[in-house]
């Protein structure tokens, strides 16, 4: 499958990345090269193989639903680019 400039723009939107025209061109060339190298995977017969998301025999690791200390608000906010009255501040949404 060859990816097109339209694909690049769609994926950039999904990725929340504003790319320059130059970057889009570069992405188009490199992504196609990389995806072409991935084609080799189609040589492998995986019809009877289960997908492996991770190697551990662990499943649904739970703990008691009990109170634990959390970070104090000022520490949570210490790296915020913008804040007001103890809240993260962002541009107007609605």
């Amino acid at each position: 499958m060859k990816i097109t400039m339209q694909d690049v723009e769609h994926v950039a939107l999904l990725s929340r990345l504003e790319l320059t025209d130059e970057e889009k061109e570069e992405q188009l060339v490199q992504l196609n090269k990389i995806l072409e190298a991935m084609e080799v995977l189609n040589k492998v017969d995986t019809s009877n193989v289960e997908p492996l998301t991770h190697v551990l025999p662990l499943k649904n690791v739970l703990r008691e639903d009990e109170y634990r200390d959390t970070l104090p608000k000022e520490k949570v906010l210490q790296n915020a680019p913008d804040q007001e009255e103890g809240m993260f501040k962002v541009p107007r949404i609605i």
Partner: protein
Amino acid sequence: MDLHKLTIHELRELLANKEISVLELTEDVFKRIDDVEDKVKSFLTLTKEQALARAKDIDEKLAKGEKLGALAGIPVGIKDNICTEGVRTTCASKMLANFTPPYNATVMKKLESADAIMVGKTNMDEFAMGSSTENSAFFPTRNPWNLDRVPGGSSGGSAASVASDEVIFALGSDTGGSIRQPAAFCGVVGLKPTYGTVSRYGLIAFASSLDQIGPFTKDVTDCALVMNVITGHDDFDSTSVPMDHPDYTKFLINDIKGMRIGIPKEYFGEGIDPGVEAKIKEAIAKLEELGAIAEECSLPHTEYAMPAYYIIAPAEASSNLARYDGVRYGLRVEAEDVLTMFNRSRAQGFGTEVKRRIMLGTYALSSGYYDAYYLKALKVRNLVKQDFDRAFEKFDCLLTPIAPSVAFEFRSKADPLSMYKQDVCTIPINLAGLPALSLPYGLVDGMPVGLQLIGKPFDEGTLLRVAYTLEQNTDETRLKPVLGGSGR
């Protein structure tokens, strides 16, 4: 005395016998940093003031006869993707250039309770994506063996700092070879533990099913000493395995008679530098001479590991890096509306390789391509793991090169695919979640070669034993760089 040149176990003895103080050791290490850091550039942040204060504190405790931790007074470098409370943690990215974590990673808590002393945060490829440390948003680190060559990556700063004696040991992280390959390029010992052995809490996530923290040390004994401190179950990491880990020093045994070592043929031949291959064959001959039984074996899906990894790792990364939105922390580029703010903050915060992997991963996970790429890669991952399962029915461990060549020159792998191919020997191990140790074994063209020992899950012990035996019976594993080259 040149204290910075010594190992953890040598320094522990000197400290225990009160022949040196922790302050002397710490000052000596910072003097070494002053002398060579201009050339090597291992560090993004130095924490001299805190380190000296801590050294004095530990000296006082020693004077009072208080019981101290296993790494008391030992200076350590920490890769800059491990969160350190109150100390800037950048991931070598503009995105996090001003990020100061409000908490410590679990490994940092463990090092602190072992009374180790952090001297600084080490350079890396941005978000651990790279194999040369050239992708750092700030500056490249140089190889102490030849300043015109890369130290490897992504944990290049950690490897270079240990090799040039700027620290006594360091921590790094390994997603596809990021501990083992720089350890090999710089001629130090590096270990990627079994997935789930060391807590990932506070490790800034790249690919969560592959990432694992591990040590860089000057010898195998030190590797075991650090493993004793950093391993263990952690409630804050649900993928850390609830099991007891052994005392790793128990495996420092100079004897491998009868041990069965598999030599997977797919890791040799085409694409591997003949000089590197010859050195690895020498190591195999040495192991046979010492009583091991080496035999060729096959891991037939090896060639598919690299393409599968470069779908799985970017897919996980695209999801993990979605958190950088300029709202709670990290770079924000102001805009009228919130979507433009996201798009511009991420565009300016991330470097080229990070953007490429986010795009690649997003594409592989997107509607219509999920089955063809991501699901296919996960199935191939299973086949890669099954190859190893079969090999370990017959062998105690496997031996391969770490990388196809010795350290290469800056800007010589400008094409992303040629850089990705650097990881062919290390990637399959992460896909299978296995432990693997990188041990220096001699030089080719004046640069260190690394051999890779791959073990069964949670059997780091066998790797330490084989590596220790080699170390005790040859000089090839003890290498010291000269800090030569122009460094341009």
